[in-house]
């Protein structure tokens, strides 16, 4: 008898969405797993501890977190999931409101959110249709985490209201549009919904109705016959060598198909980080390594009939370790005699600065003469700042399902970079690209965390060794303990200025802890020191940056890619300088920020690939300053402990990653008269599918409902470097625009050929083409083309060789309780230079979401270590991701600019929204309490200690 059979309890009968189900749950099974076994994939696994709410279902009308509800208790019960509330074409009112309000981005939390909202509504002690206990929403929604939206749109969806972008306080009753006299530059965004879809309108998400009913499939929402599961034994030590590994007992456990160890690993070194150029990251990683460099690193893996059996077999593995000295403090990592994390590596082969000093990458350079610049200064400020480890907390964890189709490997994975994964899997396992297909379903959030190859390599190995389909799913604890985190950095900034506020010198020191592996270490360090420093026109600059190995869990790519950390330090230092100079902080930025025509300098002038394709920083500063001055009527908490302050910060970002970002898109007219867009980039809540459909619809003079999209599949679309560096609109979108524009011309020519008269111009319209009073429908044209063996497809590429610059400014008014350390946000303002805004409501959502994630960083979140490489925050209840109550409504204003590079003049606006938030908040807290916080997060205990410690 296998473990699984032994664990069965009696057969139980229950109903799901009105349909009778008979099942035999395992004794210790939770309801979520039982429902997913019944292919109710609308019930999501987000945290597995009852904290995130993605698995919420109603049991006899009572909402519960199904991951902590014993499955056998379903007996005799009626269970309702999101799909039971309503389905596409027949949505429940609450689901429709989530569509209308754009109340989701990646949508992974949404099924649980709507089931909860429906229960709240049903339980509301108000009139039917009235706002359901709005005042109590913070408490009722605290068990539903959304990492993407920042909750404003969710609140709107639940309550049926629409908060305008400038905040509800600025709305004249009965009129929801911006006040043109006051906010002349502000684009009224309207709300999402069923708009026809040309660029510039707030088209709703293409998958909206499926997302809110839970029917849009994510990575693991698929039933694969004969699927095996993989579990990993993680290293119990921070630095050790495997002396021996005996898998006899594990392999003998019934249901175990294979034990994988370092003996099975390819000998090829690689990096889990993925970039367009694989040489961007050091080759320091093996699929399995006999040397273990952080706690939790793979020691071995078991492939078995179930996760339970695989885990049981992992417990039977007998491993002897030789313990090695470890280093945990990045300050000590470079010291003589420090334990070497990758002392065995060849610096040239692995592309490491100096493995004998634990040094992955470094940058030392000077522009002008900083000593001279400081000598010239009348005012000098200097300080040190510290940022923490952050977990991306995309609600869908990393996961891959792999299988062989004939001899061809298929990987269905939760990735931002399927094409880059394909390339590296081929390299690691010596496969031809034609033999490997990598694709994604809708991805449940990424934030940079899925620009890594964390599960695909192991699944590939398991599939190749067993010949069977295999699934590997990270747990939330895996996400918090072994998935890469945001690089913690120690930052030193010195600024000099003359009495009139002109900067004379900028000196930056960076020490980044990249942990046990160097994935994204060079990129984060170089990018982090780039636009942060280049934003200011200073004649003398110096940067000394290092990224070092330690035996801590690895750091990696995170929204902002290093800029967030370094902007935090520089913008705080600038604020200090403004104080000393008695110059307004907005004015200090106006005096010193780069303008078109200025050189872009870090330690030397940036290459010609980076240009001012448009410039809206001046507008961003004006808009933020005006909104802050205007205030929002928020009441300052009463009582002696409260102090009020304001603060702001700027940020700049290149609209595309450096050294090339490629995308190929095609647009085809299909039989039946619909258009098919094929593009390689990935949808993970960034909204690119919606924008791509809008672009194609606009270029083809039609509406988005005529556009189908296939994306993120190495078989079905052209190459794309991936969905990172905010490239979804400015690179992939540009390729879509080029292809759609080309197809429009092709269609005109085809219509002319079909009619036989070449001298007539055929104009595209919504459903066909028109010339001289004659109309040929798209359907007719497609049929004619098929009959004549003419392919109506246009394919175009974009290489991202030229890059523009986008800007964001954030401002806060806060109240700080000097007794408790509480920071209460009274007003939050972000102004964005997004170029032409392709989809105002969606772009607003990206800004709100970036602000939300940044406020988590600024106030709450920290992956804590015990000083010996072990993470102590292993579940979400100990890692505080912002809840609905934690976030203010942020006023969002767009500068009016038009970029020469981006499609229709658009610029990227996803990562950049995160970057100015923490320093703006720190500057506001400084203003309120007279003491500068220099460590993130600015938790209540830290603020209290500044005042009382």
């Amino acid at each position, binding site marked *: 008898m296998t473990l699984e059979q032994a664990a069965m309890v009696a057969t139980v009968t229950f109903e799901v969405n009105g349909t009778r189900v008979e099942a035999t749950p*395992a*004794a210790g099974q939770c309801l979520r797993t039982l429902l997913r076994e019944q292919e109710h994939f609308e019930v999501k696994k987000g945290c597995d501890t009852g904290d995130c709410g993605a698995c919420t279902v109603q049991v006899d009308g009572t909402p519960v977190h199904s991951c902590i509800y014993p499955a056998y208790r379903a007996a005799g019960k009626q269970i309702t999931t999101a799909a039971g509330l309503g389905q596409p074409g027949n949505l429940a009112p609450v689901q429709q409101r989530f569509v209308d309000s754009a109340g989701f981005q990646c949508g992974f939390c949404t099924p649980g959110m709507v089931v909860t909202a429906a229960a709240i509504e049903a339980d509301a002690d108000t009139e039917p249709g009235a706002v359901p206990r709005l005042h109590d929403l913070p408490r009722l929604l605290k068990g539903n985490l959304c990492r993407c939206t920042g909750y404003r749109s969710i609140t709107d969806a639940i309550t049926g209201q629409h908060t305008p972008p400038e905040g509800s306080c600025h709305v004249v009753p009965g009129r929801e549009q911006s006040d043109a006299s006051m906010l002349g530059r502000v684009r009224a965004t309207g709300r999402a919904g069923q708009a026809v879809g040309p660029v510039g309108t707030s088209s709703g998400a293409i998958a909206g109705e499926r997302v809110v009913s839970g029917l849009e499939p994510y990575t693991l929402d698929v039933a694969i016959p004969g699927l095996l599961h993989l579990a990993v034994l993680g290293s119990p030590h921070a630095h050790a060598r495997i002396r021996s590994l005996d898998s006899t007992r594990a392999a003998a456990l019934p249901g175990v198909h294979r034990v994988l160890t370092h003996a099975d690993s390819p000998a090829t070194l690689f990096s889990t980080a993925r970039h367009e150029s694989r040489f961007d990251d050091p080759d320091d990683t093996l699929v399995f390594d006999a040397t273990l460099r952080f706690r939790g690193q793979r020691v071995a893996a078991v492939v078995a009939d179930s*996760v339970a059996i695989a885990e049981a077999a992992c417990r039977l593995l007998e491993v002897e370790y030789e313990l090695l000295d470890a280093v945990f403090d990045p300050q000590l990592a470079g010291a003589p005699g420090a334990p070497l994390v990758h002392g065995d590596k060849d610096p040239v082969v692995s592309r490491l600065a100096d493995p004998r000093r634990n040094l992955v990458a470094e940058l030392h350079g000077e522009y002008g003469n900083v000593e001279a610049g400081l000598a010239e200064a009348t005012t000098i400020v200097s300080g040190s700042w510290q940022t923490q480890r952050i977990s991306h907390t995309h609600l869908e964890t990393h996961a891959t399902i792999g299988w062989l189709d004939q001899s061809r490997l298929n990987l269905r994975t939760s990735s931002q970079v399927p094409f880059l994964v394909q390339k590296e899997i081929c390299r690691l396992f010596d496969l031809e690209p034609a033999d490997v297909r990598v694709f994604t379903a809708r991805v449940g959030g990424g934030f940079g965390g899925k620009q890594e190859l964390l599960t695909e390599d192991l699944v590939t190995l398991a599939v190749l060794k067993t010949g069977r389909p295999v699934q590997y799913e990270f747990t939330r604890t895996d996400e918090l303990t072994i998935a890469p985190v945001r690089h913690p950095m120690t930052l030193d900034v010195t600024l000099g200025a003359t009495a009139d506020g002109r900067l004379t010198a900028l000196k930056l020191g960076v020490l980044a802890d990249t942990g046990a592996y160097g994935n994204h270490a060079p990129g984060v360090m170089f990018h982090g020191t780039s636009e942060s420093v280049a934003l200011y026109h200073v004649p003398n600059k110096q940067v000394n940056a290092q990224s070092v190995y330690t035996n801590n869990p690895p750091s990696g790519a995170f929204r902002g890619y290093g800029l967030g950390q370094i902007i935090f330090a520089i913008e705080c230092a600038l604020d200090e300088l403004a104080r000393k100079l008695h110059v307004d902080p907005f004015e200090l930025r106006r005096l010193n920020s780069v303008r078109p025509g200025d050189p872009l300098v870090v330690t030397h002038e940036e290459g010609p690939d980076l240009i001012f394709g448009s410039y809206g920083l001046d507008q961003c500063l004006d808009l933020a300053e005006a909104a802050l001055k205007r205030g929002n009527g928020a009441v300052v908490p009463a009582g002696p402990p409260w102090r009020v302050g304001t603060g702001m910060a700027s940020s700049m970002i290149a609209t595309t990653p450096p050294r090339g970002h490629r995308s190929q898109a095609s647009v085809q007219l299909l039989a039946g008269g619909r258009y098919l867009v094929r593009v390689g980039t990935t949808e993970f809540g960034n909204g690119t599918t919606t924008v791509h459909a809008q672009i194609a619809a606009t270029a083809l003079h039609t509406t988005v409902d005529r556009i189908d999209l296939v994306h993120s599949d190495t078989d079905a679309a052209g190459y794309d470097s991936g969905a990172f560096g905010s490239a979804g609109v400015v690179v992939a979108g540009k390729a879509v625009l080029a292809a759609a524009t080309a197809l429009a011309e092709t269609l005109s020519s085809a219509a002319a050929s079909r009619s036989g008269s070449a001298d007539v111009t055929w104009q595209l319209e919504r459903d066909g083409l028109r010339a001289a009073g004659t109309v040929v429908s798209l359907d007719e044209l497609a049929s004619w083309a098929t009959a004549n063996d003419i392919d109506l497809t246009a394919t175009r590429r974009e290489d991202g060789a030229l890059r523009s610059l986008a800007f964001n400014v954030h401002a806060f008014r806060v109240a700080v309780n000097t007794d408790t350390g509480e920071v209460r946000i009274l007003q939050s303002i972000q102004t964005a230079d997004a170029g032409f805004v392709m989809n105002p409501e969606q772009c607003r959502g990206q800004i709100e979401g970036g602000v939300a994630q940044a406020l988590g960083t600024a106030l709450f979140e920290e992956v804590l270590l015990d000083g010996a490489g072990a993470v*102590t925050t292993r579940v979400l209840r100990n890692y505080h991701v912002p809840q609905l109550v934690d976030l203010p409504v942020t006023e969002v204003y767009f500068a009016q600019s038009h970029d020469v590079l981006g499609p229709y003049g658009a610029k990227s606006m996803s990562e950049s929204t995160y970057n100015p938030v923490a320093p703006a908040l720190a500057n506001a807290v400084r203003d309120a309490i007279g003491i500068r916080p220099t460590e993130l997060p600015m938790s209540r205990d830290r603020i209290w200690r500044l005042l009382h410690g």
Partner: protein
Amino acid sequence: MDLSTVTRIIPARTRSDLIALGPTVVPLAGGSELFADPRAHLRALVDLQTLGWPALTITEDGLEIAATCTLAELSRLPMQAGWAAHPLFYQCCTALFGSFKVWNVATVGGNLATSLPAGPMITLAVALDAELLVWRGDGSDEVVPARQFVTGNMTNALAANDVLRSIRVPLTSLQATTAYRKIALSPLGRSGAVLAGRVDADGVFVLTVTAATLRPVQLRYSELPAADVLAGDIAAIDCWFTDAHGAADWRRAMGLLLGEEIRAELAASTDVASQS
């Protein structure tokens, strides 16, 4: 999450079914804590819900809360004449980190038996000087004062084969005036400090400090103490602790701050009561 090593669920129908309990067999009530933590040593669960204990029983002596009473049921406890402490029940429910959906399954007994510093049912039971009825594994019954039940971070007076049966709240406490304060590192976050104060009809003042300390601490006075006396006693507490939900020094300061707020609130409300 799936408890993949559990191979049996034993639905308890009578007390004798509890004999299966031991190091690898634990009681299951709501499951919200049990199913939220991997416990590879477990082999079986004994379901207490099938014992069918009535959730809330009002007696002449006060209130008996079954260990299996859910927080949702407790939060809806009907108000009875003279129960001035009634608001404290709902207030303590709101201190649970889990959402209202967790209230639907989480039990009062489960929260006590888990014995986390942040367990708000511990605050409630200690603040009201409840007595806990423990069914010992040898078949005997024992009444344990709530303030002695939790002994440390996730440790308590229960042996592996014991079961917490009920929480008995005396009428004097139900009729007492109470005050409640909670603070966390975020507005509704996992508790960093939860304090509850109580003034009985005879003027006895009891302050209970939880969540900030490794175990609940009760300070007891025959009458409302002066501010400096209370502050001195709070400052002398020796088990403030640090975790992801707050540093020990901050928790101590919050204990002092919120303790004084409670003292002041109860001084004002008992003043009003005595004047009217």
